[in-house]
């Protein structure tokens, strides 16, 4: 399986796929299977069928457990969708702000205290929102990894797909009313992809890798992290809810309605949906819960050992 010199390109690609697929197997089994294929002189097509057949059987067996399903139902679908909508809402809002500031920029404005205050508050809100996004994504990835350790390649792929495709067929008010701004590639496509990659996918994969290599966080770190995420969530809650109001599939343009304050045009006021932001906190709660449980179990084991 290893000698690739002189193989036609298609054959080489097939062997690469065989190599990749066999990584989903347990290391000892992978070695045995690769050895079997080498010994029988299997061709690339046959090797691919054999390895994929075994991988599918193994993965199917792993899905007989309840944990991958909990990861799917508790993280991949709800949090993947939320993160997809939230990341787009904030990326679109930032695209709009950025285009306005770039278009109207004048150094003389810096002398105006009100203008400076606005700029600082926008930058602070943006950073806080993105920090919250990173925190939610990291904890989601961590929980995904610890719940579906051996199925994490499947659940991670599904999570990435949900994040990337979760907003297909819907839009935001920023997009709906500012077609000119979003017609450009940076504001329309690149910024959103950048935000999703840097603030959602990479932190989620990092969290997943962390849980795979270290299995759990020390209790103190878990508590500090959870408190930070609660504070960031409280700060960012309005934006989070707004994404759900305006990102609904089948309702691409939300008409302005009067909000609870009676003002027309505050359809962006999503206060009735604030409890949804709590969904973002469950991974952090799970991490604190499992860290506490492991710590308690460690203490009782030590006591039993001493006795």
């Amino acid at each position: 399986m290893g000698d690739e010199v002189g193989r036609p390109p298609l054959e080489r690609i097939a062997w690469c796929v065989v190599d990749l697929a066999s990584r989903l197997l347990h290391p000892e089994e992978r070695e045995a299977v690769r050895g079997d294929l080498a010994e029988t002189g299997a061709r690339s097509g046959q090797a691919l069928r054999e390895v994929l057949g075994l991988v599918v059987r193994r993965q199917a067996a792993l899905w007989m457990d309840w944990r991958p399903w909990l990861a799917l139902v508790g993280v991949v679908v709800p949090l993947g969708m939320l993160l997809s909508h939230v990341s787009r809402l904030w990326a679109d809002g930032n695209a709009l702000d950025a285009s306005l500031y770039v278009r109207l920029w004048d150094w003389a404005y810096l002398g105006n205290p009100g203008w400076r205050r606005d700029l600082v508050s926008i930058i602070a809100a943006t950073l806080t929102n993105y920090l919250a996004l990173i925190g939610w994504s990291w904890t989601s990835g961590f929980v995904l990894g610890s719940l579906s350790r051996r199925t994490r390649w499947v659940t991670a792929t599904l999570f990435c797909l949900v994040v990337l495709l979760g907003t297909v067929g819907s839009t935001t008010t920023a997009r709906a009313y500012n077609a000119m701004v979003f017609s450009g590639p940076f504001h329309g496509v690149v910024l959103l992809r950048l935000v999703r990659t840097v603030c959602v996918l990479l932190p989620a994969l990092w969290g997943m890798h962390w849980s795979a290599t270290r299995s759990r966080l020390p209790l103190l770190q878990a508590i500090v992290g959870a408190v930070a995420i609660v504070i960031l969530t409280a700060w960012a809650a309005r934006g989070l809810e707004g994404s759900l109001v305006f990102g609904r599939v089948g309702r691409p343009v939300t008409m302005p309605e009067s909000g609870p304050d009676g003002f027309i045009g505050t359809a962006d006021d999503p206060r009735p949906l604030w409890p949804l932001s709590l969904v973002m906190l469950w991974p952090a709660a799970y991490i604190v819960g499992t860290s506490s449980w492991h710590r308690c179990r460690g203490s009782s084991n030590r006591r039993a050992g001493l006795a």
Partner: protein
Amino acid sequence: MTLGEFEYLMLTSVARLGEDAYGVAIRQEIEDATGHPCSLGALYTTLDRLEAKGFVKTRMGDPTPQRGGRPKRMVRITAKGARAASDFYNAVMRVSRGVTWATK
């Protein structure tokens, strides 16, 4: 604990091969006996099931050059596995007594 048909085929092949029982050899035995192809997926998942039932024990062998320096997964039948295979064989013999199969 009962055996399935394919599990019986595998146990019998392992017993026949003795010290030389490993993936490729077991597969060859089964294919020769049944005339049907046996996939590595079926082979290794069944092997795991048999090991979980305590019917076989497996260990990784030494790497060999004809396998690209990769080891074999060696298989050995246990006493419990031999009993289960024997029970399965006796059941098949009992139920088959007095029956003739008309084949063209």
